[in-house]
């Protein structure tokens, strides 16, 4: 073997993988070539552990314009337009350097979208942090939130939504998943594909430095106490450079002068050249001496592996070079010719004319190892899936329990966060933060797009398949509550070390659950990202598949808000409540426990509910809609009031059917049964709404009315909660600021 075990280990390659490299290229690789394989065969770039499972996901559908495999997926939204979107993680860098880690996560996903020729118009974030009682977590939250804002606000793409959950399991491994959506005409979509032998290969954007070398490899390993030494592998973002690149690239792509575009993200120049080459079935030859460099003395190895931010690769049509160069010059960017497309299928890297690496593109991108890693259900699940005695404890004071839940960081208002994001730029944001899903209108059409990201690590910890199904259902339900028909989805799969069978089991189960739910709800997965090795010191995060769902509403004026809009409206509940407390926010907040089984889910019923919501919105029959999620019915009701300027509500429900070991009152108020939505309806429309529900096969009942200044909730005819909205609102809205601005005790 040409390299010792230590060198291979440093490159994250096993002896078997090395043998495969030798076999593929028919000789021993040199160090530069070893570096190319190291990053391209890393988990992050090659999906070697996840690929066999991801293949089972539904990726096609009538509206799918672009499925997985490109820089982003795309779905048809009418009028010849496509929504181009994807979600991606930047977890590891955000722990090491929260501001830059999060900022470059935003920058990376934005590049994926405009690389496709789409104008990015919306960002959402799904975040997971440890407990806010931990000072380090509070610092990470500050850093991540200001990093997301610092990049997104500057570049002028509104951050219009997202979700955040807090749990100790994320203390040393926060999750930063960023979703971006753009709009393009179908015929303007550009692929990351090289073609046309002799076509020049251009490099444009920031200069290449030594930052981020082996970032992809870092993202494919667990963390330990030495992780902070990896700080140099975190890149520094420059939103100004990216803004120039965004505008210049869109201007260039509008000319049809380039045949393919690819951003340099993970694995930098190596990934951009080999992927465009292999997708197009061609070779790429570049000379690294032509690559603009920020530092002196960089080796070809370093240049090829650098993950410096804000760089793009373009394959330009021969004869159109001057036109392209002129546009970049207008934006004070230098487009540099670094090589050309060849016919031999090889990635040939030269340094001042001398060949320093020469390997088949496909060997890097398509012929890497694929693992069917062993998986096994964790033995400990038998115990954790059993409900604890606490679930049977009677709720002594429901009023206090509700207040505690409203103040729990996972439930509390996220205003402290979203107020730091520009959500108004581009003037598309409809009802900022007012609907269950984020809404942006599509200018020059009557339509709007609705977007939601969701995931529940607790449910997935207890049953990954069920938890993943619930995540798809909830994300799609959020879109449907606002009146949008779900048409496509993207996933970000955050898990621990796949080399451990119980983690691989979680992963396999979750992917199966996502597939089942996406099929049932007609939301094909058009792309996404897998983030493994989310572990520090051998302790994994909660398995956290995050699902982004995109929906469309034909008339933006029909978007349904979350809050009760006025007094005297009937409150109707869709769906049924069961004695389900497993994995609930109630057990977590009041008893510190993640135990039991997640709620049941009937996908047929969920689908019927979502279609009903879309139908009612289009007929303007409902005035508001809010799904029951963390904290159950009581929290959902309180949230509808907290956002309604002190307007109260009075509802009355029956207890859930009894189940041994579960307190009926707690489950009725705070249980998290799936497929439930609270809507408000003008009284003269209630009969029509109930009829429509009956026809759709959705259980529905009028349970109360809006009005007054209190949240009143009766169970079996007895008032169990009577809380001034002002008191609930104070607790709900101040919680995050109290924790994060240091006013907490």
């Amino acid at each position, binding site marked *: 073997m040409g390299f010792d075990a230590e060198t291979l280990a440093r490159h994250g390659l096993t002896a078997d993988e090395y043998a495969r490299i030798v076999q593929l290229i028919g000789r021993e690789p040199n160090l530069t070539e070893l570096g190319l394989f190291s990053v391209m065969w890393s988990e992050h770039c090659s999906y070697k552990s996840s690929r066999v499972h991801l293949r089972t996901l539904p990726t096609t559908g009538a509206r799918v314009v672009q499925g997985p495999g490109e820089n982003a997926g795309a779905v048809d939204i009418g009028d010849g337009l496509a929504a181009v979107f994807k979600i991606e993680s930047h977890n590891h860098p955000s722990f090491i350097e929260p501001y830059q880690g999060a900022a470059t996560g935003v920058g990376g996903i934005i590049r994926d979208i405009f690389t496709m020729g789409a104008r990015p118009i919306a960002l959402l974030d799904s975040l997971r942090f440890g407990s806010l009682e931990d000072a380090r977590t509070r610092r990470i939250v500050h850093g991540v939130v*200001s990093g997301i804002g610092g990049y997104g*606000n500057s570049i002028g793409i509104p951050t219009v939504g997202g979700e955040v959950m807090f749990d100790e399991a994320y203390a040393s491994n926060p999750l930063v998943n960023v979703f971006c959506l753009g709009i393009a005409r179908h015929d303007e979509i550009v692929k990351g594909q090289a073609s046309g032998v002799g076509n020049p290969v251009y490099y444009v954007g920031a200069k290449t430095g030594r930052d981020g070398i082996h970032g992809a490899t870092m993202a494919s390993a667990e963390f330990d106490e030495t992780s902070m030494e990896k700080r140099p592998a975190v890149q520094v973002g420059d939103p100004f450079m990216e803004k120039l690149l965004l505008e210049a690239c869109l201007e260039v792509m509008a000319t049809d002068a380039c045949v393919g575009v690819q951003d340099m993200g993970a694995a930098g120049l190596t990934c951009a050249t080999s992927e465009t080459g292999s997708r197009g079935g061609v070779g790429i030859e570049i000379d690294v001496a032509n690559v603009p460099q920020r530092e002196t003395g960089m080796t070809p190895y370093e240049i090829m592996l650098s993950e410096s931010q804000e760089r793009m690769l373009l394959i330009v049509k021969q004869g159109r070079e001057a036109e392209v160069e002129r546009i970049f010059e207008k934006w004070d960017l230098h487009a540099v010719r670094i090589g050309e497309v060849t016919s031999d299928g090889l990635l040939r890297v030269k340094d001042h004319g001398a060949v320093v690496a020469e390997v088949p593109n496909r060997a890097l991108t398509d012929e890497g190892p694929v693992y069917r890693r062993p998986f096994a259900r964790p033995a400990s699940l038998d115990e954790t899936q059993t409900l604890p005695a606490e679930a049977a404890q009677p709720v002594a004071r429901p009023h206090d329990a509700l207040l505690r839940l409203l103040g729990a960081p996972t439930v509390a208002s996220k205003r402290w966060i979203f*107020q730091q994001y520009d959500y*108004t*730029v581009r003037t598309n944001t409809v009802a900022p933060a007012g609907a269950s899903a984020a809404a942006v209108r599509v200018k020059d059409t009557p339509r709007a797009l609705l977007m939601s990201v969701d995931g529940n690590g607790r449910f997935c910890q207890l049953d990954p398949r069920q938890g993943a199904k619930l995540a798809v259902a909830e994300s799609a339900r959020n879109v449907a509550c606002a009146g949008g028909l779900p048409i496509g989805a993207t996933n970000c799969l955050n898990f621990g070390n796949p080399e451990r069978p119980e983690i691989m089991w979680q992963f396999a189960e979750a992917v199966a659950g996502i597939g089942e739910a996406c099929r049932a709800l007609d939301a094909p997965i058009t792309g996404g990202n897998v983030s493994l090795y989310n572990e520090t010191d051998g302790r994994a995060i909660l398995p956290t598949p995050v699902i982004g769902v995109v929906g469309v509403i034909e008339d933006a004026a029909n978007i349904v808000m979350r809050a009760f809009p006025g007094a005297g409206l009937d409150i109707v509940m869709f769906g049924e409540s069961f004695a389900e407390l497993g994995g609930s926010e109630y057990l977590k907040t009041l008893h510190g426990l993640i135990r039991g089984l997640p709620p049941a889910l009937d996908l047929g019923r969920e689908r019927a509910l979502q279609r009903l919501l879309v139908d009612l919105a289009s007929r303007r029959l409902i005035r508001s809609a809010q799904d029951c999620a963390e904290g159950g019915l009581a929290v959902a009701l309180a949230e509808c009031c907290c956002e309604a300027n002190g307007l109260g509500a009075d509802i009355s429900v029956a207890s859930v059917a009894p189940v041994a070991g579960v307190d009926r009152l707690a489950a009725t108020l705070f249980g998290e049964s799936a497929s439930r939505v609270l809507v408000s309806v003008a009284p003269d429309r209630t009969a029509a709404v109930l009829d429509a529900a009956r026809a759709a096969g959705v259980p529905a009942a009028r349970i109360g009315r809006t009005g007054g200044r209190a949240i009143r909730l009766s169970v079996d005819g007895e008032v169990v909660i009577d809380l001034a909205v002002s008191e609930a609102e104070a607790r709900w809205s101040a919680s995050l600021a109290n924790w994060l601005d240091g006013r907490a005790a």
Partner: protein
Amino acid sequence: MKFAVVVFPGSNGDHDAYYAPTHVLGEQAEFIWHKETSLKGADVVLLPGGFSHGDYLRTGAIARFSPIMPAVKAFADAGGPVLGICNGFQILLECGLLPGAMLRNRDVKFHCEFVGVRVDRTDTPFTAAAREGQVLRLPIAHGEGNYYAPPDVLDELERNGRVVFRYANAAGETTDQANPNGSLHNIAGICSAGRNVVGMMPHPERACELAVGSADGLVVLQSVVQALAKRGALHASA
């Protein structure tokens, strides 16, 4: 009527400043790249929001050296209406068309929210169609909107009625609670001595349709359209 929307590298409110006058008001507009030297016969100049030149050095500090700026100054000196919004306001401060400076928001956080903005003066081309004391609901989106000027400058601004907009609650009271960023005297916008150059931190161009949360900003653009129409009518009759 033609609006010039000056585009600096890093401008990100340029599309919004173009969309509102054209799509909502039906007027004409043209993007003017900062390397150009002529405003191409525009009747109104808008300096949009964003982070021109990456906000490097200071917000708006480098944009003042752009090749288009002499034309903007000449246009302003000749009495032409110029509106700087957010980063555009910061540029007007840096190039000396308006006095004062911007500090970081007092809580050192970026703020995006809809706030109350009271119209204090209706004798500028951008407020002529508004009612004095009218409270507009407009979005802000900035990290450095904390207006500062030395006491003598502040006195001069107040004495001469050059404070055009102030942060206020719904009742029109300029309370500290209604002040999102710590600006002195709750200042949200000011005008030049000649009253034709106005700078404001809130975004009227982002609040021109109810669909996006508020149409209160429309009055700012309608004002300038009416003011110029009136001026045109005067010229025609003279």
